[in-house]
């Protein structure tokens, strides 16, 4: 069995007491981020974790990864070096930051850039973390768009179950990049106002930054009241930008996670939905849930609190969900007002008292990548 020991998070919601307050009462507002489009300076809502400048600089990202790791160490009174046989698993939609700094300069100057003669690549962050923490297990980096760190977590759990490692640190990483923001602007997927998951008037997502980490251990080595029960990860090829609108692909991955956990749909306490507030994906998600659940358990989206943190959301939203349940509730979905007529059960609109149970966490991404896992909190 796999224990979830605890997690830490850097996000726009601030420190844990502020986060709990915001999530309990459904209060959060995005900031803004400016970017240049041609000669025009335009501003988009954005959930940033601080207001420091964001050059594409690996040192900035390494700084956040170290900071979140230190927070986890303090929270769990843990010396990571004592973890021994530990793997590092990092998920991000932008693992190419490390090359980006060099490549961008080379493209701009049409030069070869002056860099140290050492290998750069997507695995750099995980490798550096492993060296710094002193982990000698595998250190893997995942890029499966918005399911990146959820997929990293599923593989970490599989390696724990397989006895390859005793502990796993799973990181979710998403930091502002002009390239990501402008890519989403080009795709016309961003809201200029608010994130309204599942609402009939939703008009797109708002991006956010998050750096998060969670520690998983083999239960016989480090027990916990939190357990990872199962995970499903499947793909569909309806469109490269997401799921089949009929919800069939989404339903399949949720059913796979339930089957793997040996649970029936009515045994779930709540669902953390992906809920990006994108017009097509929210409908597909609701249709997918409708296919699996005769009567839906309470469900909520965390995107109105920290934005869509893309590849980082797998771990970031797990940490937030666990913090809420530790505090005795599941959070409301902010900014929701009305469902489309074809759907019946709205997302949770008031915080609901919950201290334990089984929770499904769903993540869906570009490339038709669908991921769902189930965790349990015992009293």
């Amino acid at each position, binding site marked *: 069995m796999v224990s979830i020991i605890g997690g830490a998070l850097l996000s726009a919601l601030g420190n844990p007491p502020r986060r709990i307050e915001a999530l309990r009462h459904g209060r959060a507002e995005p900031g803004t981020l400016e970017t240049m489009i041609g000669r025009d300076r335009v501003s988009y809502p954005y959930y940033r974790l601080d207001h420091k400048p964001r050059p594409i600089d690996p040192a900035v990202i390494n700084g956040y990864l170290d900071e979140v790791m230190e927070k986890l160490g303090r929270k769990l009174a843990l010396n990571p070096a004592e973890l021994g046989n530990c793997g590092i698993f990092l998920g991000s939609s932008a693992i190419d930051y490390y090359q980006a700094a060099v490549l961008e300069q080379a493209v701009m100057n049409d030069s070869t850039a002056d860099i140290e003669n050492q290998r750069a690549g997507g695995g750099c962050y995980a490798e550096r973390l492993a060296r710094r923490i002193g982990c000698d297990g595998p250190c893997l980096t995942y890029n499966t768009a918005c399911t990146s760190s959820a997929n990293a977590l599923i593989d970490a759990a599989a*390696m724990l179950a397989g006895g390859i490692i005793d502990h796993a640190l799973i990181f979710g990483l998403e930091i502002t990049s002009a390239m990501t923001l402008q890519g989403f602007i080009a795709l016309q997927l961003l809201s200029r106002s608010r994130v309204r998951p599942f609402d009939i008037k939703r008009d797109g997502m708002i991006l956010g930054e998050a750096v998060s980490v969670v520690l998983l251990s083999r239960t016989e080595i480090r027990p916990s009241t939190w357990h990872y029960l199962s995970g499903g990860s499947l793909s569909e090829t309806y469109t490269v930008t997401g799921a089949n609108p009929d919800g069939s692909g989404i339903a399949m991955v949720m059913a796979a996670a339930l089957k793997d956990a040996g649970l029936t749909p009515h045994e779930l306490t709540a669902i953390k939905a992906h809920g990006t507030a994108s017009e097509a994906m929210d409908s597909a998600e609701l249709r997918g849930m409708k296919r699996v659940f005769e009567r839906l358990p309470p469900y909520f989206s965390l995107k109105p609190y920290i934005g869509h943190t893309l590849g980082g959301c797998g771990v970031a939203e797990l940490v937030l969900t666990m913090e809420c349940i530790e505090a005795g509730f599941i959070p409301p979905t902010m900014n929701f007002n009305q469902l489309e007529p074809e759907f019946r059960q709205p997302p949770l609109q008031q915080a609901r008292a919950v201290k334990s149970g089984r929770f499904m966490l769903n993540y869906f991404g570009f*490339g038709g990548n669908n991921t769902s896992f189930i965790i349990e909190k015992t009293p």
Partner: protein
Amino acid sequence: MIYIHATGIHNTIPTSGQPDLRAELKAMGADNRRSDHFMRLAVIGAHKAADGHELPAETAVYMTSGQGNTAVFNRICSALRIEKNLPKPVDFINLLSNSTGFYIASHLGLAGRNIFLTHHHFPVQMTLLTAQNDITQGLQQTILAGGVDEWQTRPQLARKLMGIEETTVLGEGSNWLLLSPERENALAVLEVEKRCINEEELTLRLRAESKHHDITIAFAPKITKSQAARFMNQYPSFKRHNYEAACAYYETLAFYALNSFIAAHKKGRLLHIDCGTNGYMLMTVEIIP
């Protein structure tokens, strides 16, 4: 321990620019629209491994790359920084590593797990270790695992990024293995070491291997010529798999080393040795006669 049921080899040494793969892809019945060179390369290699096999729809795709789709990154950078335009939507989508997996799944009609993962030193070994664990755990029944690296359009810069010598000839490749827990009709058995080992452990391992007959060794490019010569002198019964003669450098060459051994041998055992800052990483392939 898992079984290799097929290999897919696409390995070239381009002399001037990235080769045009569209005709080859078309001949395979694959859709060229919206894909770029990196994606075409991936689909061609995966197609070759899947060719002649009826893959179950739930077959998983585990893909890795050393440097990824850097050409699309260059295009987006040019759009943003030089032309001052938004990136083309298709380029932005193709920048995500798993979009390539989408095109493979789409071409082969797959709906299983589809992941892109990498590792700083051992992208191939760690991808295969993940596949090995998932098959051993019963989480996956069939996995198409492969490594894709394209010829770099800025070769001098690429050599710096890869930390290799300025004179190293660059190649490109897309090499795939079809893996399953079933022995029946398998070509070979694959075993990936679960962790890095040190020099002393390597010596013990090689000594143990030397008791087997028909052992062949493949050295990764990071093993220096003098190191390789030392190993070969110490164990004169070992043969050397000179896969390097048919390829130029790219970071997922280890897949090519395994695949080319399987393609060229009807029996025998290959020990692939690679090294990183934490020590040596071993993989073995034993051909099923």
